[in-house]
């Protein structure tokens, strides 16, 4: 067992109102630059629908994620390393800009410069890529709220088999839901595995997946390798960029921008402890339907003394273990089991999970001509094929039983609380019927319905104390260390050109490191050799998207 900590997210889909606030705030912070106009690190797509980029879930076409080879070993769906190198000049699986959409603005100048005339001046759409006039035919949310769904939604890769028939013939009765998506910060990220340059990495401490902007060489295999299409190519810089999980905020204990601004307050962020030694094994589970359980089995119970012991042994700080124990993710995903991963069959072990919405089922139950009693949706959950099957294709590799159980727990929670509010006493038998204790149902209600800010976000501070102190060095002469090339320090009164401020800092850090036991004062001793210097400046320092 090797314990690692991972920042994870859960979204409660029942509460998403499809307002796109999350997408917009993310864009304003991270992707409002040239080359990133078309990138929505957070996007909210209407389901059923083709998604963004179009049909990204069709892995037969895009070859994202992992699959098993004939011997049952995990391999990248797009092929092995050698195959990638032979194809390096041209990536056969890369989406084109049309698969996302061609970003545009409007020719506002014709408005501002228009003279008096008989006709109303019009600002035409122009492409932000070529500057040419553009006939708008697709956009970032063209099929929002099922718009145009009669022509597009049935291509949704999650609609297959029996579903396809019903959706085609009963389109007006079809349900609808919103699916906000960010990078999954997977435990077994195929984007990282696809990068020939080794520029993508998972952060050891919190599992955030990032692209080293300096090391990236723009081969674009991460873009095609990610089954969720959450790495994007910046055509201005020629490098890959992706959701950073807002790591500067996470490090200082704040939720991501998309979560902070979420109008539905439906996002949860917290730590998960997991067994890094078992990730490969779990991702290689032969039957797709077992992947959900396999991934759950990789998560460790943070209150198990043995896990705590091992976590401390593996260098997880105490306050992180404590944060993992208070994490909202663990109960949602494991204890109550109501959160599910998006497309576990991609085998990347995604770490943004979803509480499936009850609303499509309620829609059917409350819909026209329905005989069902809205208070008693259990039979409906058992009988309804369409939404359940659809949700199963989305969240449990097609296992409808999983979805039914989760929906029943959510329905039971409503029933239990209604009963409690009306009669003043909890209806223990309702909790019983879904195999939960009344206490657990109430806890779940508190987390999902009351959803206090402090309970939704349990984010420990990053341990940057040594690195933070090092920032004091900034502005002093960075290269002026023992054996370094710099000599820009002003002459000291004693005539030496030694940068005394730096050496004072170095001593202080070394002393602190001494107090901490075996922890070295990392970033100072670093500079003893060129390799250390480089590993600090080029590799050691997490690099985010952006410049």
């Amino acid at each position, binding site marked *: 067992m090797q314990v690692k900590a991972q920042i994870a997210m859960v979204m409660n889909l029942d509460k998403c109102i499809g307002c796109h606030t999350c997408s917009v705030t993310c864009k304003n912070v991270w992707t409002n630059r040239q080359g990133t106009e078309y990138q929505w690190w957070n996007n909210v797509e209407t389901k059923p629908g083709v998604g963004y980029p179009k049909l990204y879930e069709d892995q037969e076409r895009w070859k994202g994620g992992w699959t098993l080879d004939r011997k049952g070993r995990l391999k990248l769906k797009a092929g092995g390393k050698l195959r990638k190198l032979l194809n*390096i000049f*041209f990536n056969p699986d890369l989406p084109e800009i049309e698969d996302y959409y061609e970003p545009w603005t409007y020719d506002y100048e014709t408005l501002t410069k228009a003279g008096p005339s008989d006709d109303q001046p019009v600002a035409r759409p122009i492409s932000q890529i070529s500057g040419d006039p553009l006939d708008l035919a697709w956009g970032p949310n063209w099929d929002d709220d099922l718009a145009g769904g009669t022509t597009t939604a049935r291509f949704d890769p999650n609609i297959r088999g029996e579903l396809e028939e019903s959706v085609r013939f009963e389109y007006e009765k079809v349900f609808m839901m919103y699916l906000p998506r960010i990078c999954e910060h997977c435990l077994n990220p195929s984007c990282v595995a696809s990068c020939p340059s*080794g520029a993508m990495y998972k952060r050891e401490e919190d599992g955030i997946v990032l692209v080293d902007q300096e090391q990236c060489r*723009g081969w674009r295999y991460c873009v095609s390798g990610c089954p969720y299409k959450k790495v994007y190519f910046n055509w*201005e810089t020629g490098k890959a960029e992706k959701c950073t999980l807002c790591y500067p905020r996470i490090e200082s204990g704040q939720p991501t921008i998309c979560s902070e601004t979420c109008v539905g307050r439906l996002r949860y962020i917290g730590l998960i402890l997991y067994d890094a030694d078992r990730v490969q094994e779990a991702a290689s589970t032969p039957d797709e339907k077992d992947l959900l359980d396999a991934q759950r089995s990789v998560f460790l119970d943070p209150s198990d003394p043995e896990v705590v012991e091992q976590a401390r*042994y593996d*260098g997880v700080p105490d306050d992180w273990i404590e944060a993992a124990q208070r994490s909202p993710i663990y109960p949602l995903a494991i204890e109550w089991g109501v959160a599910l991963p998006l497309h576990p069959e991609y085998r990347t072990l995604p770490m943004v999970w979803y509480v499936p919405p009850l609303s499509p089922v309620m829609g059917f139950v409350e819909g026209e001509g329905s005989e069902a009693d809205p208070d008693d949706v259990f039979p409906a959950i058992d009988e309804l094929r369409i939404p359940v099957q659809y949700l199963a294709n989305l969240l449990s590799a097609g296992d409808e039983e999983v979805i039914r159980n989760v929906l029943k727990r959510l329905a039971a929670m409503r029933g239990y609380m209604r009963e409690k509010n009306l009669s003043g006493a909890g209806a223990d038998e309702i909790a019983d019927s879904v195999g939960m204790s009344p206490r657990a149902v109430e806890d779940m209600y508190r987390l999902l319905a009351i959803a206090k800010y402090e309970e939704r976000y349990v984010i420990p501070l990053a341990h940057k*104390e040594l690195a933070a102190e090092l920032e004091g060095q900034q502005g002093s002469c960075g290269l002026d260390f023992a054996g370094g090339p710099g000599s820009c320090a002003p002459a000291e009164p004693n005539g030496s050109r030694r940068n005394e401020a730096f050496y004072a800092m170095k001593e202080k850090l070394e002393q602190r490191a001494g107090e*901490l036991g075996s922890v070295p004062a990392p970033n100072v001793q670093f500079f003893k050799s060129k390799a250390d210097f480089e590993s600090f400046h080029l*590799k050691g320092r997490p690099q985010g998207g952006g410049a």
Partner: protein
Amino acid sequence: MNLWDQFLWVIFPYLSLVIFVLGHIYRYVYDQYGWTPKSSQMFERRMLMWGVLLFHWGILFVFIGHVMGLLVPIEVYRAMGVSDHAYHLLALWAGTFFGVIALAGILLLNMRRWFISRVRTNTETMRFITDGLLLVVILSGLFATVGYRIYAAQYDLPAEFEYRENIAPWFRSLFYFAPQAELMLEVPLMFQVHVLLAFVLFALWPFSSLVHVFSIPLGYLRRGYIQYRSSNPQAARARERARRKGQQVPRPERSRNVE
């Protein structure tokens, strides 16, 4: 030999090579962020596929051909018993074959650079120049290989121009720092033009996206699939070492409040 010849065959090539080497070092140190082929595949796919594949595979073999012709001394071939005629037969056919492939590729690439609006709008001047120059260099190279034969046939010259006895030793002499400019004086004009254009290209190389040539990611073959990086690599390494030995690792204290 006049100063002009000295300039063309000594000063200019050295200038170009020095710029090539120092330019790459400078770029590598100061511009990692700009080091990329800057793909335009998102904007246009079909022409690029043909262009890029033809060009790269073509140029790869053309490059091997240049190593065979320029770096390997003629004596080696003779010692190995490869007749001059056999060599030139191979050079002509293989050279022309791969040359034409590379030419077709770079032609396509140039065309899409210029004619496809959104590719053109997002192309820097340097890219236009290097793409165009590559086209001209390859054209002049093919012209030298094929053109010389046609020219020689008309004037009763030996059909095979033995560049391994003048261009090649001159090229190598640059690297021994004993440049033999006189070797280049009698070389036919079309070969001279090809060589000079190539040195112009070398001088521009480090300042263009051609730097991507030095980034063939062979490390991928050795690297593990999932890469981790720590914000405190030393501590992470120490932990990893201790883990392997099965020892307990002393741990950092609790987090202080950092604003």
